[in-house]
């Protein structure tokens, strides 16, 4: 044992000396900026359970940076992107953030598709004072928990989504009893709080929460149970694949009550998955865009995506990260040519009523409130077409 300890001490000292001599030099205060470039680290779920949102949301943001670069960059600097995968796994997301911050030395981060995993990076981002724009993660506390001087979001957060659904239900005639169907994950959990509070406030009785798995393949049992409860409406807080299964089975089994979906799903995507709009005749969904795909408001963004990423399928999730990129570009422009992280944060906090691009909301940030998007839209299906229902729904 003595020999072992001695040997390890000698080895340890020798290795330490060798590597310490080769240690990297101290880094500059604000990394990722050169006279010709600004390095931004992007994190997305490129593989894993949320991979469907990975590249589409990343490319929807990247096209904005590509367009800026094509026009000469910002104050003479082109945006250089480093994209990392978080696999929707917290340890991988933390590793990705640490790599981008400490090894790639990016100026700022733009990323996060999975709330649970991006939450794991929060402390690292704040401790290193790195500005970050959330890509599409909706959990409130990522941005709203204090202190937070560096993390921003230009996308409707989960709690606002829940409140919009409750407010919309309050406007529906003869709807007094509802059942909520959803997952037991952080994505759905972000909506339940304000949804149940809002329903209570409006005097709508919540008959129960019916949990469905994200890998749902058959919803017969859940649909029959809900039918027995005789609700006036059903709130659906499920991911796209599970929601499609539920709606298909609800249609098949004659559960013919209004259904209200969260921003997690998109009507066109649901129609594609189900194979038509028959099962969606009584469906309303909180939407974040100015209009359905193919509408006048969305055409320029669809064309931009086709220009920079011609092999990408134009789909509902394609533009979820676009408003964040627009806000980052505006912040970088406003921060001026002598760019620092502090100036960028100050500039971001000064953004007011910035057009959210494809988003229905305009973006406003302040030092106290980094959630810049507060407006959603309700969409429904009329005569087989997706249309906007009523006015915008604000928080």
């Amino acid at each position, binding site marked *: 044992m003595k*020999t*072992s*300890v001695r*040997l*390890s*001490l000698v*080895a*340890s*000292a*020798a*290795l*330490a000396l*060798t*590597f*310490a001599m*080769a*240690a*990297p030099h101290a880094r500059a205060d604000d990394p990722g900026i050169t006279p010709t470039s600004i390095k931004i680290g992007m994190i997305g779920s*490129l*593989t894993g359970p949320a991979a469907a949102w990975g590249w589409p949301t990343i490319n929807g943001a990247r096209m904005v940076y590509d367009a800026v670069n094509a026009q000469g960059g910002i104050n003479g600097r082109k945006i250089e992107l480093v994209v*990392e*995968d978080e*696999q*929707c*796994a*917290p*340890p*991988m997301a*933390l*590793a*990705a953030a*640490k*790599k981008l*911050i*400490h*090894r790639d030395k990016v100026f700022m981060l733009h990323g996060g598709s*999975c709330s*649970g*995993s991006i*939450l*794991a990076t*929060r*402390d*690292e981002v704040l*401790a290193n004072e790195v500005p970050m724009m959330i890509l599409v993660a909706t*959990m409130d*506390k990522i941005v709203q928990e204090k202190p937070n001087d560096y993390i921003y979001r230009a996308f409707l957060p989960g709690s606002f989504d829940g409140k919009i659904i409750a407010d919309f239900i309050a406007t529906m005639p003869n709807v007094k009893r509802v059942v909520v169907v959803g997952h*037991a*994950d*952080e*994505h*759905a*959990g972000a909506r339940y709080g304000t949804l149940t509070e809002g329903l209570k406030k409006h005097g709508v009785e919540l008959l129960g929460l019916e949990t469905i798995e994200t890998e749902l393949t058959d919803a017969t049992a859940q649909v029959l149970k809900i039918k027995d409860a005789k609700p006036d409406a059903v709130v659906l807080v499920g991911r796209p694949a599970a929601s499609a299964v539920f709606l298909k089975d609800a249609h098949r089994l004659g559960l013919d009550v209004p259904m209200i979906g969260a921003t997690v799903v998109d009507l066109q995507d649901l129609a594609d998955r189900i194979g038509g709009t028959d099962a969606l005749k009584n469906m309303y969904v909180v939407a974040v865009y100015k209009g359905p795909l193919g509408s006048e408001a969305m055409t320029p963004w669809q064309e931009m995506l086709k220009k920079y990423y011609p092999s990408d399928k134009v789909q509902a999730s394609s533009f979820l990260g676009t408003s964040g990129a627009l806000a980052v570009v505006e912040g970088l422009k406003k921060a001026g040519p002598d760019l620092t992280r502090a100036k960028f944060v100050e500039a971001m906090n000064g953004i007011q009523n910035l057009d959210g691009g494809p988003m229905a909301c305009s973006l406003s940030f302040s030092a106290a409130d980094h959630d810049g998007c507060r407006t959603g839209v309700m969409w429904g299906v009329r005569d087989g077409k997706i249309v906007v229902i009523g006015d915008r729904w604000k928080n």
Partner: protein
Amino acid sequence: MRTLLQNNLVWLFFAGTVALSFTTDAYSQYLMNLVLVYVVIGQGLNLILGFAGMFAFAHGAFMGIGAYVSALLTAKLGVSLLVAMPAAGVAAAIVGALIGFPALRVSGLYLAMVTLGFSEIVQWGIKHWKSVTGGPDGVSVPAPVLFGHRFYGDYPTFYIVVVVALAMTLLAQAIIRSKLGRAFVAIRDSEIAAQCSGIKVARTKVLAFAISAFYAGIGGSLFSLTQSYITPENFGFYQTTLHFCIVIVGGAASLAGPIIGSIILTWLPEVLRNAQALQEIGYGLMLILFVIFAPRGIAGFLIDKGILPRERFSLRRPSLPGRSRPAPQEG
């Protein structure tokens, strides 16, 4: 000199991590901390899978129990990590012992199914017991304060992780060389022969579960320190599969195996960050290749080649848990 090095590889590994910690950036240091966390969990799983020959598939759950007990004790009750970490291990060990009882009646794939079911129940519990665990919102883990010093960040955390990982590896070595370790191996090789030799098979199996879960609980506590924020997603099927791969790829029934497996399976996904297709099929392909061409893992391969010294009680032929016939129940 070669023999000296061969016989002290465990010490050299830990000395190497200390030396490397002077050179790493925060990213590499974080990965090194994760390697050490998985060394602890891997050694625990190796005791039950490699040495005792039981197909336990619940270490993600045991790890989750340890992580949450440790995080909740420190974050909500202000308990010192010096108490919270052993408590995490003990909590996981108690649950492990309870799960060990079904192991008396089933083996092989049936045991895997029982333990897998238990894993799902634990994850469901963590997700839904919101008033205690925070549910999907997770729990923030405060930086521990030990002896008046706050261990915040990857480097200070490393010193806690490396000391615990070394202690747990030495404990595993002591267990393997003890009467209990020999009883594990005897049960693995033949339950009937073990019982004929006077080994209390039922008690030894439950002990194997408890000790192995204790390791996972301690590993979970360490893991929570490296993450500083834990959510239920951390402790799902993916985590259990990772632990399994660490032991199988590294080498079951070898003290060096979990160390090798932890290094490879923590670093490989990072090396393959820009090769997503390879990442997706990586684990599956790796397991298939190792089961076919190197069933005793890398450690077994290196032992055969004379690069690593032969360890006592290491597998001398390919052997999968559950192949031996269960002994009749005691009493």
